[in-house]
């Protein structure tokens, strides 16, 4: 395996450019702020101009955290089930062992569903 430190030089230059590209515009806007736009705070200036509507009420509100349990259960059966697609595609060529492994995987999903059901996490309270 070739080991040429020169090869990393472009990487270093690229890194420097990336950092500069992030910092220079911020620095320029700060300079602009200092020289051309003195601070004139006021209610209309602090309003959310073209950035959504004015917020009302406190940010800390009560909401049902049970939603998250639903979210997790959904994740289990939606995202995890995607792993079955490769098995479905290659189903006819699979050896017995692979089919059994897939069956075990499905049984795992089923057990988690049964657990959630029995514990009452699927009932919206």
């Amino acid at each position: 395996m070739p080991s040429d430190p020169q090869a990393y030089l472009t990487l270093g230059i690229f890194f420097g450019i990336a950092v500069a590209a992030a910092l220079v515009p911020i620095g320029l806007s700060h300079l602009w702020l200092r020289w051309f736009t003195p601070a004139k705070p006021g209610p209309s200036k602090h309003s959310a101009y073209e950035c959504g509507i004015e917020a009302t009420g406190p940010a800390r509100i009560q909401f049902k955290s049970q939603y998250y349990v639903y979210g997790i259960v959904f994740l289990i059966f939606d995202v995890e089930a995607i792993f079955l697609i490769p098995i479905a595609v290659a189903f006819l060529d699979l050896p017995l062992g692979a089919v059994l492994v897939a069956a075990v995987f499905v049984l795992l999903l089923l057990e988690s569903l049964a657990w959630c059901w029995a514990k009452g996490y699927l009932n919206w309270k």
Partner: protein
Amino acid sequence: MNYLELISHVLPEIAVLVTALVLIGMGCAGGSRGGGKAVLAVTAAGLGLALAAVVFGPESGRLLEGMIVVDALTRLFKAVLLALTLGTALFLFPGGEAGGNEGRGAENSALLLLALLGLLVVVGTENLLLLFVGLELASLALYLMVVFAAPAGRPAEAALRYFFFGSVAAAFLLFGFSFIYGATGSIDLRVIAKVLAAHPVEPILPLGVGLALVGFGFKVAAVPFHLWAPDVYQSAPAPAAGFIASASKVAGFFIVAKVLVLGFGVVEGSADWGAFAMGWAPLVAVLAALSMVVGNLAALAQQSVRRLLAYSGIGHSGFILTALVAANAEAVRAVLFYSVIYGVASLAAFGVAGCVLRARGADRLEDFAGLGRTAPAAAGVLALALLSLAGLPPLVGFFGKFQLFAAALSGGTPGTVPGLLWLVALALLMSAVSLYYYLRVLKQVFFAPAPADAAPTRDTSAGTAVCLVCGSVLVLLGLFPSLVLQPLQRALVQLF
């Protein structure tokens, strides 16, 4: 691929996994009517089956390019992990942690077994990716165990902190592994070692190893990646803390030693005084020195015994990493031996701390007052565990520490001053410091009068039995260290 061969090599893991699933099924069906005994029986049976599978299973094998490795060393450590987990499981039962545990014993045990499953995978692999998956499985189960059986409040905060630290550390670990893969073209430790021996080192390799060290440093609670440990040890239920301090740490040190010495032995570098050379040894030496100083000095100021044990654990990580810097066969033997006896002593200490916590509602130093009279057995075990941690003969801690330091000094040319003398001198100094805070606890236990209104310290017979077994192991191994050292030596000969 032959499935039967595969299954026969991972039979212990399968036994643990099936037991965990059965336990979840029991939690599903059982509800809250005291199934504690049944849960304990199933857990113990599963662990026993897994142990039998380890003992009577195949003696050696290397499947799927190092993903699954069975040799004398992995079998020995799988057996150790199973035994430590069995001890933890006995602590969990029944009427274990006050409150919250009602009706959730099955799930709690299932989590314990899933964490164990992760650790077994970690121990039984030489593949970086599977190693990562195993560590994550163990970590996810442990985050949950910290909060699972506990009331809301502090444990939740500690678990959240553990989770955040753990996820960031896992990200570092995976990022480091990706660089290692990029630099060597393999995730199999043995192939990595071969590539490193045959080719010049790629400039991105140090970055990869350094990032991976961050992840490992978190796992073994080495300074500066230790900040989660005191909160977790103090706030988690005592069995969970005991598991994190024993089994999880044993597996952590096992894998750190294996990855660094087996995979990256070529790029060790040197931390010898006046002869520093770039490699992982100087980094590990810095981690070791910081851990020893911070852990032992911070432990002096603690009022909570579990927090004190956490800082002492950080200090012990430093002691163990000290020997790892030498990176020869003797050092690996000392590291593995000490991690095992540290695990046993920690389990016993947390068991007694949990028992005091249940009886008196807190674990400040004052709460241990008079324990020597109200609960002589528990006090005796605590004394054995703490004195072993402090390294007093004839307990095994002395022998283990002696081996650690002798291994650290063994490197270098004979007749000259050993290069690691600076680190060992620091370790000896900190070892003396540690004696002070262990004795502070024991002074309360044996010489302070018990408060008049002290509730009698009662514990489940299972918990007491585990404590007594741990205590006798510490004494027995102190008198006959070769009981563990010889199998370890034989196993390591195969490895090197």
